[in-house]
């Protein structure tokens, strides 16, 4: 692709706009700065979530009380879940890398509505503060689990309202980001950049944006109803007034199942960028990957009931949901096959992002395949709401989205900060982290199959062994995490200067300097007829 170096412009990190210092960031409408704002705020929330996770594991080290009371434990997994889902992995890759890269990858100077983009971040922050307010003030930290199941969620005496409104506002932020991306992709592609030439990361952002747009309002209104229920006792979900608690679950999962694909799709997109780059080879099955992205986005909308197999649905609904759950697994399988085939006859350059990418594939397979167990009716009845489910979703949410996030940050780090990290430390961090991960979550499958229910503060002696191992793993994982973070933070300030295209990538972001100038391109690029994002 033709390169247009905007050497004359200041780069976006040093650029001085209307405001100086901090204000120059939090009032900046530059998509790159907003991406970094998300990165920093998410990193803070993520660290809180991680600490809560470690605290839970410490509590579960032995039966009985270890470090906290039952009430604290219940509040801990609730807050852990809410933070991790609503504040880290749902905004996750789109808000950070989507914001940073989308305009560059389609040859535009910014997103379609830069001010709205900044507003989304403000909403995000507002939502975060509301949820935090629920923790610090009022009658007690929410203790319902991140699922807010009725009727417990309006029976508990804890501080639900701020948490609910916080989640609502976070949802709004997510909707606005999705809307912005859709318009951007539709309207701002540079000349010659046809749909069939978009990079795969952009495609996944497109699919994700649709889910964000169409699914998030559902959870918004559902949470508002729970709030109204608490305030006025309307009766919508209260069995005492004729409401149906199972309907609440339907509505919750109508959002929250598609939400898991909001988390994983951009992650898959990032992997689809990294593998061709480090194999120096055209992606295998470009069209098939796009089709599977859209299939996941669409079919993923129709399978929500697999979280409710034991809830008391009709048989017909159970068969339907189980069958469709299996169908939605197939596009994921297609992606895995295509990624591995991309490596075939490539010229593989093993670097940190590539390590993360292959470990992503590995843990994603484990997470996904355990999802198949859960999708089968008979097996689900047995392991639903046990540690097995906890194992499944940590493998796939954290192992999937989390690993892809790390892959992405190591891949685009030189572009974002204009500096290179210490590769040796990055690799050490990766190996420690991965070992810790496997030790932490693998025992959960075993515990689940032994019958240990989830959300258990205390457990019977027979579950002790698995829990010890798991807690032990959490410490290894944390060590790896610290190595990685320290390395990245240090390198962002003091690393070696990075080249424009250190990995020899072919997508448009590698044609602009590192870090990119304020307006990305001096001149909007033009894509030639026979050019494509993965032509090596």
């Amino acid at each position, binding site marked *: 692709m033709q390169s247009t170096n905007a050497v004359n412009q200041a780069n976006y990190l040093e650029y001085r706009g209307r405001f100086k210092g901090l204000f120059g960031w939090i009032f900046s409408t530059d998509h790159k700065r907003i991406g970094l704002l998300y990165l920093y705020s998410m990193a803070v929330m993520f660290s809180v979530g991680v600490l809560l996770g470690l605290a839970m594991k410490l509590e579960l080290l032995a039966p009985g009380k270890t470090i906290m009371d039952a009430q604290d434990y219940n509040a801990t997994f609730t807050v852990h879940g809410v933070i991790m889902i609503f504040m880290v992995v749902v905004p996750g890759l789109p808000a950070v890398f989507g914001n940073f890269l989308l305009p560059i990858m389609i040859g*535009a*100077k910014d997103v379609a509505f830069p001010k709205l983009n900044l507003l989304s971040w403000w909403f995000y922050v507002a939502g975060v503060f509301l949820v935090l307010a629920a923790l610090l003030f009022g009658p007690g930290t929410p203790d319902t689990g991140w699922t807010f199941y009725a009727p417990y969620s309006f029976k508990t005496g804890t501080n639900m309202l701020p948490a609910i409104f916080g989640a609502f506002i976070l949802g709004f932020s997510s909707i606005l980001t999705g809307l912005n991306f859709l*318009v951007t992709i539709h*309207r701002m592609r540079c000349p010659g950049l046809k749909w069939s030439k978009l990079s795969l990361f952009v495609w996944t952002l497109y699919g994700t944006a649709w889910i964000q*747009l169409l699914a998030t309002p*559902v959870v918004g209104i559902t949470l508002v109803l729970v709030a109204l229920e608490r305030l*006025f006792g309307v009766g919508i979900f209260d069995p005492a007034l*004729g409401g149906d608690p199972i309907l609440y679950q339907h509505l919750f999962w109508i959002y929250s199942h598609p939400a898991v694909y909001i988390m994983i799709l951009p992650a898959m997109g990032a992997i689809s960028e990294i593998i061709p780059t480090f194999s120096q080879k055209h992606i295998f099955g470009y069209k098939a990957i796009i089709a599977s992205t859209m299939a996941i986005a669409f079919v993923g909308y129709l399978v929500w009931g697999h979280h409710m197999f034991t809830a008391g649905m009709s048989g017909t609904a159970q068969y339907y949901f189980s069958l469709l759950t299996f169908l939605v697994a197939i596009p994921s399988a297609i992606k895995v096959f295509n990624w591995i085939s991309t490596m075939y006859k490539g010229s593989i350059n093993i670097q940190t992002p590539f390590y993360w990418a292959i470990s992503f594939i590995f843990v994603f397979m484990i997470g996904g395949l355990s999802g198949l167990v859960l999708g089968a009716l008979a097996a689900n009845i047995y392991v639903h709401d046990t540690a097995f489910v906890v194992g499944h979703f940590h493998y796939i949410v954290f192992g999937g989205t989390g690993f892809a996030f790390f892959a992405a940050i190591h891949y685009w780090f030189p572009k974002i900060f204009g500096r290179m990290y210490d590769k040796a430390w990055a690799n050490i961090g990766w190996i420690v982290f991965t070992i810790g991960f496997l030790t932490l979550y693998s025992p959960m499958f075993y515990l689940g199959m032994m019958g240990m229910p989830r959300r258990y503060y205390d457990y019977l002696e027979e579950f002790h062994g698995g829990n010890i191992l798991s807690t032990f793993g959490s410490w290894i994982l944390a060590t790896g995490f610290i190595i990685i973070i320290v390395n990245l933070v240090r390198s962002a300030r003091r690393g070696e200067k990075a080249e424009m295209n250190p990995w020899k990538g072919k997508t448009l972001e590698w044609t602009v300097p590192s870090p990119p100038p304020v307006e990305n391109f001096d001149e909007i690029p033009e894509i030639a007829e026979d050019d494509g994002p993965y032509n090596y």
Partner: protein
Amino acid sequence: MEKVTHAPHDHYDAEASKIGMWLFIFTELLLFGILFVIYSVYRYLNHDAFHLAAAELDTFTGAVNTLILLVSSMTIAMSVTALQKNNKPLTLLLNGITFVIGVVFLVNKYFEWGAKFDHGIFPGSATLAETLSQGEILFFGLYFIMTGLHALHIIIGLVFIAVVMWKVARGKVHAGRSALLENSGLYWHLVDIIWIFLFPLFYLIV
């Protein structure tokens, strides 16, 4: 897309803002759509009670509100034509009519709700819990939530229209840059469509 030479921030793309608005409308549709899901489930489960309760609502007020809302939809649609024909006074007049009708709608709503409150029918009230069946409680719960949310959207729409009128008056929105007006129209029509469904579901099917 042709080459954009000026800074991206003040570049004007009518189609972008239009699809932006449409996408926003989609989220609103789903928001209400889910309430319709709840409504239909509970209607299915409490068939008779819903019939009984719906009879309590005043079809006449509902019909009046439906009609005036339709008229307001037309006036705001016409105002776009007026703007495109560079007829600024007519644009403002048509928008003004829409605005006034919106206010009238709210006033009607106020009296309607007021009457219900006087009869002790409001969410969580003692009358509801003591005299009505579960299905009827659900019906009124949904009635207040859905019409309330709709009224909230009317208010937002009114603010939107007011802003647009001000911009039209100041000449910031004109024939060459009419996207904002069209968007306020789209939004107002959305509010109308929702009412088109609310009206039969609550007032008509008795």
